[in-house]
């Protein structure tokens, strides 16, 4: 049985089928994320899986940069159907489902998880997710993950709105607050007035993320907060990143 967390993510993304969607996204963010890949994975024949590929923005950018063994998995068929907008992700082979249930073992050279949902649910969900990611990676394969760290979010307590750059149809409204009771930062996001799955996003500090990854069979290679993904005056300020490597058993 899928976990409650997984069902909730799927349910909300499927429900977003009714949200007006123009096919655009923040191209600066996508470009920066794929720059990370290019820096660390020069071989264009690497098998790369975008976990939580959504509507295929990153897959399309990777294809444009010459990567030719691309795969994407997402919980939502609704999201995957959108991958044909703008001929996006034509080169990718798509999968639907939960990475934790995938029967594939040691298949991919690289797993990407951009704007990770880690922290949106409980620790058990996050461990299960990372166990699945570890299983589908080959030994010494790379996990490149971006997420909202506490260090980043603390600098943005308050409200802000961001309109995606290609169209005014899609607007993200984020509220960052500090929950005194939990002692945690919370991030609430809405897209065109519909809540994203992580309505309250309980963020990890960078040290907590490192501990989570090391406890899930990875070793840290690089913390990316100071890399180019950290761009002033853009939504990228919400992202930290890590590159981790699968430890062989």
């Amino acid at each position, binding site marked *: 049985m*899928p976990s409650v967390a*997984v*069902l909730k993510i*799927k349910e909300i993304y*499927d429900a977003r089928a009714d949200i007006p969607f123009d096919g655009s996204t923040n191209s600066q963010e996508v470009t920066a994320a794929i720059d990370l890949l290019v820096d660390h994975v020069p071989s264009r*024949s690497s*098998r790369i*899986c975008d976990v939580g590929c959504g509507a295929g923005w990153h897959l399309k950018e990777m294809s444009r940069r010459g990567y030719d*063994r691309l*795969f994407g*998995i997402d*919980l939502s*068929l*609704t999201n*995957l*159907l959108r991958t*044909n907008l703008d001929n996006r992700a*034509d080169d*990718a*082979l*798509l*999968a*639907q*489902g*939960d*990475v*934790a*249930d*995938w*029967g*594939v*073992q*040691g*298949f*991919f050279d690289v797993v990407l998880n951009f704007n990770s949902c880690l922290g949106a649910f409980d620790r058990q969900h996050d461990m299960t997710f990372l166990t699945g990611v570890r299983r*589908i990676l*080959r030994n010494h394969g790379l996990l490149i993950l971006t997420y909202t760290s506490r260090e980043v979010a603390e600098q943005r307590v308050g409200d802000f709105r961001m309109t995606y750059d290609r169209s005014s149809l899609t607007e993200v409204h984020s509220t960052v607050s500090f929950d005194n009771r939990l002692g945690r930062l919370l991030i609430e996001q809405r897209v065109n007035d519909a809540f994203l799955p992580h309505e309250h996003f309980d963020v990890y500090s960078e040290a907590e993320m490192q501990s989570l990854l090391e406890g899930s069979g990875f070793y840290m290679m690089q913390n990316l907060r100071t890399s180019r993904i950290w761009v002033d005056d853009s939504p990228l300020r919400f992202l930290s990143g890590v590159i981790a490597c699968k430890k062989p058993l």
Partner: protein
Amino acid sequence: MRTSINFDQLVELATRPKGIVMAGMLNGDNLAFLENFVLALSDSVWQLGDESDHAWEEYHVPSDRLPQILSCLPDFEELWTRSSARVAWINRFRQSQWIGSHKDASGDLQLIIGIKIPTLNSGGQLWLANQSQLVPFGTGDAFLFNAASIVHGTTAPLHVQAERLTLNVRLWFN
């Protein structure tokens, strides 16, 4: 039961040029049922897949056993109920057995279910177009695609323990 699957969405994705993998479609009980079903088959029911020296083995599921087999896949029930005809068979690839580049002769969609799939380094992988385009498809997963229009084949399992065992269901919708 996994999560609900929208039939129209599934078919639209399955008919794209690379089909779609459905991760983790068989739960433990249903996987065990299919494994035991295959184990219980006598040697005499298996036929050679073709006349080559690397031929695999096939078992054609009789129509009276088909409902029992398909009941292992409740999430795909709409595929059975909406299709006008369906046939199923089980393929077994042992060491050095493989099927070369081909398109199937007929059918609108084909579902492949992984009963036992070797890990990548042990061979026995499904590919599309050419051997560099392997399908990320493991035990318990499903792959739905148009086998009559997409060139596909398998690599050979590389050692004795690396057996490839799949349930295949061909569907017609007219």
